[in-house]
């Protein structure tokens, strides 16, 4: 039953404070991780069913009565669910050690699970307003999680994040109200059908712009990105990993993609705007990342740059471009969380995030160093790791569509990416050991375990990418490239 994806984390989250009264750390750790593992396994098993039997639109039955909860699980949302559960599982393991000294673990886990529930709900929703509501669930949880350390930086970042998001969601709602006013319904199917009948290109243009502002701010597309380099570095490392790895993709890119491609239909104007936004994000992110000294801030800017790749691929709109974009989205979710977890391990061990104070940590923290090399090479697109293939697909798609200018920028920026990741590696992990860190220790067991898992996934996807593409990405791409007709034909209920 698809509703499990929302219900289980929601119920667990509501129980968490009570559990926290019984046992401060042990039970919350165990229960949260069991929940996350359950979600991961469930998403894989249900995935097989979906792939074999096609899209599943589920209407909920409760106590023998039909409830009016309609959830849609198709290739695209399945991919997202899988990504959410995979990353959150790894992050959950990491939290066991990392969140020790923050206190109130139970509340932390409750917020963490609520964020997952919100994202799962967003992915499964079939109604514009439901998308908004679950977006807010995830967002409110994330504001609190960013500020969880209660330090000055955390609060400042969280406040700016909240204030910018509040404006963004207001614009989303205005757009929803407009659509409601003109089509008299908010279900994706009705809206798509109505827009086909109306053929109102100016209305679409207006709504698209408002959505780009709203969801684009969530996805941190330049120029709506300014909160990200504050919020992501300030948050506790596992939350940075969740935000950069998953949240910006679900609440930003998933929503944009679903609405633009499957509801409005991608016309050349939207496509052009998205592609330009993508390229600007790639460049701005890469250039600023280059001159950062704070390791997490560098990672945050690099997220902006990589988001640009995804938007560029999806905005292109050809099946290959969408495939590349989604594949990059998936890969980025994994290696960026890995890198943030690495940075967290380093920060916990050394107490600093400044690159110029580190040096030679590979000798003291071999696991962290090795996994971060894997992550860096992946994100920089070095074959045969996963990042290489997804960037390659995007670039091939650009060349095929004769968008040579975009392709050149994409290649150049990936060069810059490689460059600054080499800087991270050289300054933090290799080179001469800074004597301050002579008695630094390797990260604790669960942290190392979760980093190793993610690094192995990076390598495995790199080698087995044809299988991943075939089993997970092609169904998702089919959903998106079918465009409006997919929603009109299949979301009928």
């Amino acid at each position: 039953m698809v509703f499990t994806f929302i219900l289980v984390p929601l119920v667990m989250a509501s129980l968490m404070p009570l559990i926290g009264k019984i046992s401060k750390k042990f039970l919350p750790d165990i229960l949260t991780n069991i929940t996350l593992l359950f979600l991961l396994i469930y998403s894989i098993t249900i995935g097989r069913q979906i792939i074999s039997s096609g899209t599943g639109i589920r209407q909920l039955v409760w106590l023998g009565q039909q409830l009016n909860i309609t959830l849609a699980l198709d290739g695209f949302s399945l991919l997202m669910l899988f990504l959410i559960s995979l990353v959150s599982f790894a992050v959950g393991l990491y939290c066991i050690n990392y969140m020790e000294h923050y206190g109130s673990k139970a509340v932390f886990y409750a917020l963490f699970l609520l964020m997952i529930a919100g994202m799962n709900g967003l992915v499964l929703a079939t109604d514009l307003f439901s998308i908004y509501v679950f977006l807010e669930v995830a967002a409110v949880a994330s504001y609190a999680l960013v500020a969880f350390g209660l330090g000055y930086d955390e609060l400042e970042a969280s406040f700016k994040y909240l204030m910018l998001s509040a404006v963004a969601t207001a614009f989303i709602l205005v757009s929803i109200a407009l659509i409601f006013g003109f089509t008299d319904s908010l279900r994706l199917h009705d809206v798509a059908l109505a827009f086909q009948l109306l053929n109102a290109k100016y209305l679409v243009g207006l709504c698209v712009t408002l959505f780009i502002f709203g969801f684009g701010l969530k996805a941190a597309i330049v120029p709506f990105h300014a909160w990200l380099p504050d919020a992501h570095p300030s948050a506790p490392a596992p939350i940075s990993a969740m935000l950069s790895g998953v949240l910006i993709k679900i609440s930003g890119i998933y929503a944009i993609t679903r609405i633009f491609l499957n509801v409005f239909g991608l016309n050349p104007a939207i496509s052009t705007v998205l592609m330009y936004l993508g390229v600007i994000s790639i460049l701005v992110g890469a250039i600023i990342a280059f001159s950062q000294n704070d390791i997490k801030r560098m990672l945050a800017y690099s997220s902006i740059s990589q988001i640009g790749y995804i938007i560029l691929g999806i905005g292109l709109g050809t099946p290959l471009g969408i495939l590349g974009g989604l594949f990059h989205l998936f890969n980025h979710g994994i290696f960026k969380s890995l890198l943030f977890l690495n940075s967290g391990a380093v920060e916990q061990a050394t107490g600093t995030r400044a690159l110029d104070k580190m040096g030679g940590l590979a000798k003291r923290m071999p696991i962290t160093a090795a996994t971060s090399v894997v992550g860096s090479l992946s994100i920089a697109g070095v074959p045969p790791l996963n990042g290489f293939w997804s960037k390659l697909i995007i670039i091939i798609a650009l060349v095929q569509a004769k968008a040579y200018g975009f392709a050149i920028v994409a290649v150049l920026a990936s060069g810059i990416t490689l460059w600054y990741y080499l800087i991270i590696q050289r300054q933090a992990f290799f080179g001469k050991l800074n004597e301050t860190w002579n008695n630094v220790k390797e990260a604790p067991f669960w942290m190392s375990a979760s980093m190793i898992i993610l690094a192995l996934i990076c390598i495995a996807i790199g080698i087995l990418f044809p299988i991943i593409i075939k089993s997970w990405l092609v169904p998702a791409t089919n959903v998106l490239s079918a465009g409006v007709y997919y929603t009109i034909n299949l979301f009928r209920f």
Partner: protein
Amino acid sequence: MIQTLLLTALVIFSILAVLLRDLLKAAISLAIASIFLAIIFFRMNATYAGVFEISVVAGLITVLFVSTIALTKSDGDVRESKVVSILFPIFFVLFIIIDIFVMKTLLNRLMVVRYPAPTGNFGQVLWGQRTLDLVGQIGVIFAGVFAVIALFRKRDKKDE
């Protein structure tokens, strides 16, 4: 006509809420604006939304604001620049003109799809058609509560 007047009042009190120096007065202006909004809702047959607007927004949120203002006790120490208040009317009028112009051209070009009006009462609609939103509401409430708990907890160690 009365509708327009009410709307104008709403806008005026909103402007007051923004421009008034005294935070307490500003908060109260906001509450009054809420009440006007609620009246507008009533007149549009949106009774339940109106009740919510009065009880929650004009009531609960105002209480929250006032208690925050009381907790921080710092109304005086942030000087807002006066230029802002002086420039506001100019920008506002400019905006209104653009607004009217854009709305006219935009709305005239758009067509509307009409579906038959839904039957049943409000409760049926809320429970029958927006059930998922209710689940979402529960989630949001939990998130808000936990967020407040998390932000007002006592730090164990590592306090800056």
